[in-house]
Structures are given as structure tokens and as C-alpha cells.
């Protein structure tokens, strides 16, 4: 949250009141300490950081195409020092595939959450700011999407188009925005009557400016918490889709590895277990980050 861009034209005193909006600045130091002291948050960030590094440096850590057949099929972990986590039924390196899988999961998770956040923030802020019939209409829309089973909707959207990473991210984003919209709407409804918004109105700021520069920054804390949970859920959804074979055939994904390994469940269950552990830890790290952020940003919230 950067320092506010105080308008060049506004009288400084009133403008300062209007920008009480930016309450983060004086607390920055305290906030930072709160982050470092929260063990949940630190643990989450550490695990998440590990996965992000894996995804970024997959090419350096495991050179070579993860789809290539490099050894004998179905080697158990530890059986051959060259493949520490074994090989799958086609003789592909499990470790390399796990490392590259981090890329697909994080990419889909983050882009789906970004799409969901963008739609949710626009719908939520418009509904909360304007109220009246706009709110009524948009609330209906939110309810409509919340009633539709998310995973089924994602399956339908992916079925309409071809299952590429982009389509999957788009589908998950399109199905997951209502949660954010509800949150942002509630925040806008409570903030639109506050003093700093009144001050901004009296200065004759445009609606767009009040929404984007005054209210939105203050509505963000619960949205940031929701964002990490959204990424986590998107990763779980992507895993489910890939498991059902609705995936990009050219991309290695953890869910797809589970789907492939399922055929060898009776003989080589490690092929199913390992990618699942990877998913669980990636999702766990995001949930820990979310819980930690929640404790730091909304200290009195009950959820």
C-alpha cells in the first residue's frame, strides 16, 4: 500500500482528511513486525516460497523435458540413485515431474485467483457503492453464481473450449468470483458513509476516484485474506480437473500425475501418493498464509 497521491488541486487540510483513507502508512512498521512475529504466517510463507522457487527454477533444477522417458518403468523411490523419487509407468522421472508440476499448479492458481479477484472486486464495489437497483441486480447475479455448483460450472466451461492452462484458469476464475464480490460489497457498504469518503465527496472528487483511490484501499484487508484461500482452492480445483483428464496434454500437472498413477494404485501407490503430498503442502502453505494474514489484518474477526 503506497503513500496516497494527494491531489495537486485540493486544499491540503481537507485533502489530508479525505486521505485518512490511507491508514496503512503510519502503521507500516508495526505491521511488518506483526507479520514476522506470526508463526502461522511465517511457516506458510516459507513453504510457499519453496514451491515458488521450484516453479521458477524448474528448468535449472531438472534440465530436460519432464515428459521424456529416461529410465526403466516403475522404479520405486530409492531403488535407483539417479531417480530419487522413482519413475512412473512410462519410465519418466517422478522428481522432475513434481518440480515442473509446481509450475502448472501455481500458474493456474494465481491466474485463476487474479481473474476471480478482478471480477469480484468490480461487481462488489459497484454493488456496494451505488446500492439501490444496481445492488439488487448484482446481488442476484452473485447469488446465481453461488447456487451453481462451482466444479460443474468449471467442467462445463472447460468442455466448451479446449482444455489448455488458459481455459482452465479462466474457467476457475469465472466460477469463483462471488465470494470476493460479497466481501467487497459488504466493505463498500460500511465504508461509503465514513468521514473520509464524505470529505472526498465534498471536494468534488469523481465517483471513479472515490471508488478506486479512497474506498478500495481500505476494503482490501479481507480481500487479501480471501486471495490466498482462492489460490488454494483454485489449485485443488485444477488438481480435480487434471485427475479427470480435463487437462493440457503438453503440461505436467500434479492432478494429472495422480490420474496417471491411479492405474498402478495396487502395485505402485507411491505414484499417486507423492503428487498428492505436493498438492497438500502447496495448499497448506496458502491456507497458513491466509490464516496468518487474517490474524494480523482482522484481529477481531471471528472466522
Amino acid at each position, binding site marked *: 500500500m503506497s503513500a496516497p497521491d494527494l491531489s495537486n488541486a485540493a486544499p491540503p487540510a481537507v485533502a489530508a482528511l479525505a486521505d485518512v483513507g490511507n491508514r496503512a502508512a503510519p502503521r507500516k512498521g508495526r505491521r511488518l513486525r506483526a507479520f514476522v512475529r506470526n508463526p502461522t504466517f511465517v511457516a506458510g510463507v516459507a513453504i510457499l516460497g519453496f514451491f515458488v522457487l521450484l516453479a521458477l527454477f524448474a528448468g535449472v533444477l531438472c534440465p530436460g523435458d519432464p515428459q521424456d522417458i529416461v529410465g526403466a518403468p516403475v522404479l520405486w523411490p530409492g531403488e535407483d540413485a539417479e531417480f530419487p523419487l522413482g519413475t512412473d509407468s512410462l519410465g519418466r522421472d517422478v522428481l522432475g515431474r513434481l518440480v515442473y508440476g509446481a509450475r502448472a499448479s501455481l500458474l493456474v492458481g494465481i491466474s485463476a485467483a487474479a481473474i476471480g479477484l478482478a471480477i469480484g472486486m468490480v461487481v462488489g464495489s459497484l454493488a456496494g457503492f451505488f446500492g439501490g437497483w444496481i445492488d439488487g441486480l448484482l446481488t442476484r447475479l452473485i447469488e446465481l453464481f453461488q*447456487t*451453481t455448483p*462451482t466444479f460443474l460450472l468449471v467442467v462445463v466451461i472447460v468442455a*466448451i473450449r479446449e482444455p489448455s492452462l488458459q481455459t482452465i484458469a479462466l474457467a476457475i476464475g469465472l466460477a469463483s468470483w462471488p465470494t470476493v464480490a460479497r466481501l467487497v460489497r459488504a466493505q463498500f457498504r460500511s465504508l461509503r458513509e465514513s468521514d473520509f469518503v464524505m470529505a472526498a465527496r465534498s471536494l468534488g472528487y469523481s465517483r471513479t476516484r472515490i471508488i478506486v483511490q479512497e474506498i478500495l484501499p481500505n476494503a482490501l484487508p479481507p480481500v487479501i485474506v480471501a486471495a490466498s484461500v482462492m489460490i488454494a482452492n483454485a489449485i485443488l480445483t485444477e488438481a480435480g480437473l487434471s*485427475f479427470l483428464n480435463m487437462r493440457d496434454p503438453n503440461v505436467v500437472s500434479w492432478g494429472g500425475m495422480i490420474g496417471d498413477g491411479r492405474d498402478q494404485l495396487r502395485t505402485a*501407490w507411491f505414484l499417486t501418493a507423492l503428487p498428492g503430498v505436493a498438492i*497438500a503442502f502447496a*495448499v497448506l502453505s496458502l491456507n497458513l498464509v491466509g490464516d496468518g494474514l487474517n490474524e494480523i489484518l482482522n484481529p477481531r474477526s*471471528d472466522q
Partner: protein
Amino acid sequence: MRMGRRIATTLRRTVIHAGPTVLGIIVLDFLLLQLMPGDAADVIATEAGVATAETMAAIRERFGLDQPVLTQLMNFLGHLAQFDLGYSPRYNMPVLDMIMMRLPGTLLLMVTALSLALAMGVIVGSVMAAWAGRWPDRVLSVVVLLLYSMPGFWVGLMAVVLFSVKLGWLPSDGNMTIGAELTGFGLVADRLSHLVLPALALASFFVAVYARLTRASMLEVQRQDFMRTAHGKGLHPFFIQLRHALRNALIPVTTVAGMHLGNLLGGAVVVETLFGWPGMGRLALEAVLARDFSVLLGVLLLSSFLVILANVTIDLLHAWLDPRIGEAG
């Protein structure tokens, strides 16, 4: 008497409220159908193997596919009003019949999983709240957080490895033993043994959701005035927790249970496919693979209706749990 009136008021209000949502879902469904690549004529032509431009045009005319979009929407609504979800050329069967054949399987799985998740979640959450901050709370918190992070279908697969492959206790495929002529107790036991693993896989995530929620709302309730009154009356702490705290904590839990029903249905798609469970979710996936979009959208539509129905039920449940709800309406 008064409870009857309260419930009637709630029922009327929720039905009025649900009407536009139902209409919206139908329109959304129709729009998605329009976006699908190819139309019913293409599907039928592919099935038949040969198609000239004339026969295609004839098929389109017969199904009204050459009409403007708005007219088609009206036709769609008209058919729905007669419970007609269209016809599947692939299976040579009305879509509604196909879904109705699968609905009981999905309902059985969902009700079992939801009951399991609610029961375990409320128990675990209450234990966590009762020992808040002490070791039972901490240990269970870690377990719950892990369950919250694991994909349900993977939990199911690991359960298959343990209980079916290694121990051989439970079957891992289908909803009954095929070919076994069972009656009475044997039949029920056979069905139940097939139900355990899918229900566990579907419930795992939701146990975590309800446990976290129960813990939070139980702790929230402790601060309320009526809790102090109950203590002051000298009631046994166990009954205070059960009759006063839990009853009030159940309201957010049931609300969230209703909100998650859609997710539960979504989870059923994966779990049913995994366990070969003959339900609506697996039908949806079969429809995707067969590119039979009328079936797919029929499942989406009916699932949404199921969620609305469940939410109305939950509103009624609330009117019963909380005397304040429905009074004003």
C-alpha cells in the same frame, strides 16, 4: 402454533426470493448451451454418420434451431415448464430420465457424506473449543488444517490403498457387489461397505470446514449474556455447552453447510468417477467425454435446483432453531 406460523412466513419469503434465481439459472444454462461448439443437428448427424446440407437443415427446422435466439429461449423455457430437459441422441433417451436414474445414487452419497462431515466436524470443533489453546486443540487444529488442504479424491485414493489393497476390508469400485444374490441384512451390509470409502473421500474437506467453523462460533457464543445467565442458574457446564452454546453455534454451521452444498455436488463429480459410483456427477463427466452437451447442462441445471431446494430447507431449519428468525417477515 407460533412456530408453525413462523415457518410458514419463512417458507413464503424464501420461495418468493428463490424464483428469480431459478429463472436466472435457466437463462445462464441456455447461454452456455448456445456457446457450445456445434448444435444438436451436428450431434445427430455425427451419430448417423452421413449428413447432407438438406438433412441438416431439416433437423435444425425440426428442433427449432433455425429460429432467432430469443424464440429458442422461449422454447427452452416452455419445454422446461413441462419438465422436458431435451433428448440425448447419443443415449437415445430423454435427458431427464437419464438424470433421474442417477439422482438417487448421488443423493445417497451426498446425504451420507454431509451427515458424516457435519457430525465429525461439530464434534471435533466442540472438542477444540472446549480445550481452546491447550494441546487437544493444537493437535486437532493441525489435523483439521491438513484435511482442509488435501484434495478429497486423493484422500479417497489413499484410503483405497489402505483399506482395499493392503487390508482388503472394503470394496473400492461400484455401489454393490455385481452378481451377488443378497437379501436382507447381507444386502444392506454390502451397500454400506461400498458407501464408506466414497463418503469418506467426499466428506474429508468438509469435516475440516465445519470443525473450524464450529470452533470459532462456539468460542464466540461463550461471550454472550445468555451464557452468563446459564452459568448463574447453576446449570451443569456440559448441558450449558450442549443446550445453549452448541444450539446457537449451529446456525452459522448450517448456513455454511447450505452454501457448500454446491461444492459438495462438484466434489461428487470427481469422487463418483474415482469409485465408479453410478451417480449424477459421473454422468456429467460421461457427457463431457461423449460431447453430449444437453445431458451436461441438464445435470448443471438440476444440481442448481437441488442447491436452491436445500437452501430453502436450511432457512426452515433456522426458523426452527432460532425463534427470532421469521418473526419480522
